[in-house]
């Protein structure tokens, strides 16, 4: 009788790959193998004929930059720290992260930016207050000219109440430069200590913006000989 059951079972079995055979044998416990050999084949073929389905998927990086404000303002703006992560969400630079929460004050690095396009000449501004900026090593100064206020990088001896000049004029004689004024490099005498330098006129300051070492209050004073 066992042989008859076995031959009936053997007759119903067809040639399958060893992987499927092992799979089918491992699906059910060994005690029930003989009785349910008939049922194994349809399930394994169903498994064979099924389209593979993904049951898990990797998360995509939802990175939106916090720099969405298009209009200039002097009020501090909330910012999000990067922690060294780039737009994919992975660490690109190690060692960055943590620290006190900061708000960003929008700094105007293009000093010669006349308020009204109608009056293009050099203009003066008054320093209202010099304060600490958590986002950079240098202090920043709130200056007001005409009817607009803006933040700029403060130089070492800048105090509230100073008048600073922003000019784009290059004359025949070199200008007697005062601290805090902004002139084209061609108008300054050789040997003046400068900071917040732009590589071409209208680009905005990109070089020499950090604070000097020692007492923290001001900008560094590198000497540039021309």
């Amino acid at each position: 009788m066992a042989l008859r059951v076995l031959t009936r079972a053997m007759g119903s079995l067809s040639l399958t790959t060893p992987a499927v055979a092992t799979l089918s044998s491992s699906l059910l416990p060994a005690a029930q193998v003989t009785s349910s050999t008939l049922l194994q084949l349809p399930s394994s073929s169903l498994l064979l004929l099924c389209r593979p389905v993904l049951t898990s998927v990797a998360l995509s990086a939802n990175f939106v930059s916090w720099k969405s404000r298009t209009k200039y303002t002097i009020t501090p703006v909330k910012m999000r720290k990067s922690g060294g992560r780039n737009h994919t969400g992975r660490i690109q630079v190690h060692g960055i992260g943590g620290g006190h929460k900061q708000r960003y004050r929008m700094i105007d690095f293009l000093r010669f930016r006349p308020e009204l396009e109608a009056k293009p000449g050099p203009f003066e501004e008054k320093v209202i207050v010099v304060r600490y900026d958590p986002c950079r090593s240098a202090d920043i100064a709130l200056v007001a000219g005409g009817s607009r206020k803006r933040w700029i990088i403060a130089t070492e001896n800048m105090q509230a109440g100073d008048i600073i000049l922003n000019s784009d004029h290059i004359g025949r004689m070199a200008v007697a430069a005062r601290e805090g004024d902004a002139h084209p490099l061609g108008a300054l005498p050789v040997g003046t200590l400068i900071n917040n330098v732009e590589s071409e006129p209208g680009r905005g300051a990109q070089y020499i913006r950090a604070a000097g070492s020692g007492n923290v209050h001001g900008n560094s004073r590198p000497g540039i000989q021309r």
Partner: protein
Amino acid sequence: MALASGPARRALARPGPLGLGGCGTPTRGAYEWGVRSTRKPEPPPLDRVYEIPGLEPITYAGKMHFMPGLARPVFPPWDPGWTHPKFRRPTPIHEQPLYKDRACYVFHHRCRLLEGVKQALWLTKAKLIEGLPKKVLSLVDDPKNHIENQDERILNVIFHARLWHSTEDTPKRETYCPVIVDSLIQLCKSQILKHPSLARRICAKNYTLSTTWNRESFLLQVRGSSGAQLNTKDPLPAIASKEEVEATKNHVLETFYPISPTIDLQECNVYDVKDNTGFQEGYPYPYPHTLYFLETASLRPHRLQPDHLRAKMILFAFGNALAQARRLYGSDTKVLEQPVVVQSVGTDGRVFQFLVLQLNTTDLASNEGVKNLVWVDSDQLLYQHFWCRPVIKKKVVVEPVGPTGFQPETFRKFLALYLHGAV
């Protein structure tokens, strides 16, 4: 040109990012706020077919699906025929009915002027005098004007406002500041029995004010509502004599170059020029007497600094006086025969600022001529500090509950300003 290849040819062909900009213009401008990834993407440009005038482009609009060779159809914006009140857009500024080309600089109750009192004086063409006028100071010292048990009653008022009035341990400024001002006015009103003409007054809250004037090519406007206003049936008499008024002709207003006098004022192109005193014609109490300004914000950055508060008091008192003068004497600019006097008290519950403004002239366009007069008494403490809970060190009460550094002088000035005009 033929020998150049690849990047060199591109560099020669279009001056741009590779450093060969045109003469004077930078290859890249200064930083523009807002990174490109957060800006809204531009709509795709129209097909070149639309640039040819008179030609009707063949689009795939009829086919109801995209077709590679045909032009992209341009549909008119869909007008659903109705707008949900939640999602109504305001009409563009240029199409609003009150739009004007000339910009108007509006001062409202939240403006903080950068130069403070100096800027307010320039805007109102006024001369500042420290200290209250002698007439008012004589009322302060006169013992006939004092209330019986005055000091005791004021201490009760302070206790009530700062401690007893609410069930919290330490009431906030929003609660105690209006209570203290209302109680002090109530104390002043108790003098009606001695001076019956005090009954010809009324206290109004939530008033609106709007006046416009020209000041050296700027159009200025004061608008808004703030605090309480005391109105009377009879106007206040002029304080400064004619000689003093004439003497102000020699006074030169302080300018603050390079800052423009309209800094921190709201610039708008949609405005209405009419004067509004806040009350209709035929109101039984037409003359403004005193304005009360309360600084009720609990957080210090939200409160106005004393300098800004004084500037706001000057401008609102001036606005009231100007509206009154225009109502009485017409809107032409001239030197007033009967100057209009308006008083003002500003407080944050502890520190008081007193102000008396005399409007001598409505000719504000030029910088010369007669100026208006402003008497300011600033930073008068009513009490230095109030302990809501006693300070106990080593089981000994060091500071009891109550105010420290109480100055009765401040309330006497408050009372004098209240009685001025009726005594």
